[in-house]
């Protein structure tokens, strides 16, 4: 079967814009979480988040900037980086040989809120015509397709934090169907006053005011998560086509992908309640997150013993943390595999989160080092993971498993495998 490889990556994250800047910060344990500055968050119980200091003018022409929300700026900027990294000039490639599948879950909520405020305060003639294309989930996929002249399949997937993995799984499918190059990944920018209020309503956000204590997945003090704005883009290619065009090398293969979906819980809890996750307790069925991981490993043709590191979803709530820890422990045994959650330095980026974890895992494979989980100190009762805490850990990595869960019942898993030949120039992203 066709081998799908990653030939370029780009990152716009709260703790670093640019792949190498982000990677340096991540290995150094530098967090991008801090007080919300995009608006006055003082009236809200949640005052911390991961904001990305992106200079969109450095990456995006004025016309596209004006027509799009911050969430699209994040993805478009990361796409520029990723295409340059892969040494792809879209203008030189047949337009139907390139497609776009990106994930998104919060839509252009900053843009949307601004225009809705104009609608209700000044009237319909004061609403920007760009509102029509800026706010909806598919805006980013469409604008990437238009800007780079990519006329192959173009699609958006909305499965919250699982979206970044689902997009990459779908992009691999398009490559197998015959599109040689896909731009994929995801981005989200959920931080507007309205956007924050919607998230607070789930009851899952941390209201802690200390950035070092607010988001502590797997810790006995876990009390919710913090959201972040950000995204990552990957260039996926058919390995043979990449070689033919003279691609500079690859970061790794998309070796396995699977997704499962949880049924609603048996109880009558609200739809957003985390009780909706995994089969009803005591039902005897295999938890769906574990099932997604097993299916992804089977798809990659490897056993759990061959996995060298797990990038956890790391929700930051006691119930979901325990469920994920159990799924990992059942697959790998107690402390059977190193586990990490660098998202403790960015917050949960929703559609951008899974995509960023994939890029992070590929960089871990490139440099043979596992980035740390920060701030977590004492695992909660019942959780017995080999968490990589505080400091990065040098480690031989051939296969990495990335897990993600999205609100509403999405579980996704991707297996990444080291390239058979290393990158031609391992530090090419420095350019």
């Amino acid at each position, binding site marked *: 079967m066709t081998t799908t490889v990653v030939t370029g990556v780009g990152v716009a994250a709260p703790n670093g814009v640019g792949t190498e800047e982000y990677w340096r910060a991540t290995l150094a344990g530098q967090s991008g979480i801090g007080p919300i500055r995009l608006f006055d968050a003082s009236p809200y119980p949640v005052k911390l988040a991961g904001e990305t200091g992106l200079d969109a*003018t450095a990456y995006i*022409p*004025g*016309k596209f*900037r*004006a*027509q799009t929300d911050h969430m699209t700026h994040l993805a478009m900027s990361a796409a520029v980086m990723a295409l340059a990294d892969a040494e792809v000039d879209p203008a030189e490639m047949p337009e139907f040989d390139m497609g776009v599948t990106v994930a998104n879950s919060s839509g252009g909520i900053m843009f949307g809120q601004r225009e809705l405020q104009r609608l209700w305060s*000044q009237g319909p*003639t*004061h*609403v*920007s*015509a*760009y509102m*029509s*294309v800026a706010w909806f989930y598919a805006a980013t996929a469409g604008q990437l397709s238009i800007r780079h002249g990519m006329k192959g399949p173009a699609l958006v997937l909305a499965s919250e934090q699982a979206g970044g993995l689902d997009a990459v799984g779908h992009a691999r499918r398009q490559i197998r169907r015959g599109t040689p190059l896909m731009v994929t990944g995801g981005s989200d920018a959920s931080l507007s006053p309205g956007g924050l209020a919607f998230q607070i309503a789930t009851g899952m956000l941390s209201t802690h005011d200390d950035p070092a204590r607010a988001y502590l997945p797997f810790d006995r003090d876990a009390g919710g998560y913090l959201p972040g704005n950000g995204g990552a883009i990957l260039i996926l290619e058919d390995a043979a086509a990449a070689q033919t065009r003279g691609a500079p090398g690859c970061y790794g293969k998309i070796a396995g992908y699977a997704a499962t979906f949880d049924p609603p819980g048996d109880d009558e809890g609200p739809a957003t309640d985390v009780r909706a996750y995994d089969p009803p307790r005591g039902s005897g069925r295999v938890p769906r997150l574990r099932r997604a991981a097993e299916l992804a490993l089977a798809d990659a043709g490897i056993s759990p013993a061959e996995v060298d590191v797990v990038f956890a979803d790391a929700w930051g709530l006691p119930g979901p943390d325990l469920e994920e820890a159990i799924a990992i422990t059942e697959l790998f045994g107690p402390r059977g595999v190193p586990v990490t959650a660098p998202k403790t330095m960015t917050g949960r980026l929703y559609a951008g989160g899974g995509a960023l974890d994939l890029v992070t895992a590929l960089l871990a494979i490139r440099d043979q080092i596992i980035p740390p989980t920060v701030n977590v100190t004492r695992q909660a009762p019942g959780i017995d993971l080999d968490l990589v805490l505080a400091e990065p850990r040098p480690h031989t990595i051939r296969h990495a498993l990335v897990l993600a869960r999205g609100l509403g019942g999405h579980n996704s898993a991707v297996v990444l495998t080291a390239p058979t030949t290393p990158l031609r120039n391992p530090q090419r992203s420095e350019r």
Partner: protein
Amino acid sequence: MTTFTIVKLKEIMLSTADGAGLELEGDFLDKPFPDLDFDSLAVLELATRVQQDYDLTIPDEAVAELTTPRDVLDYVTRRLGESV
């Protein structure tokens, strides 16, 4: 009486592209919008901003007839004249 000038037109056109990336020098007035990298949505946004700044209502059918910057200049000048 309020007037609509070329300077103001250029200012609004630039604002639809975040102030950058448009070539609005020389004889741009008679160039079709697509030649100025102005798609149909950008023309709609241009009309929206004119509506806001001049308190006009421009019907969609009228927007469809605006194919060059000069069309906009002439249309707005005429409408402002009517409203005096």
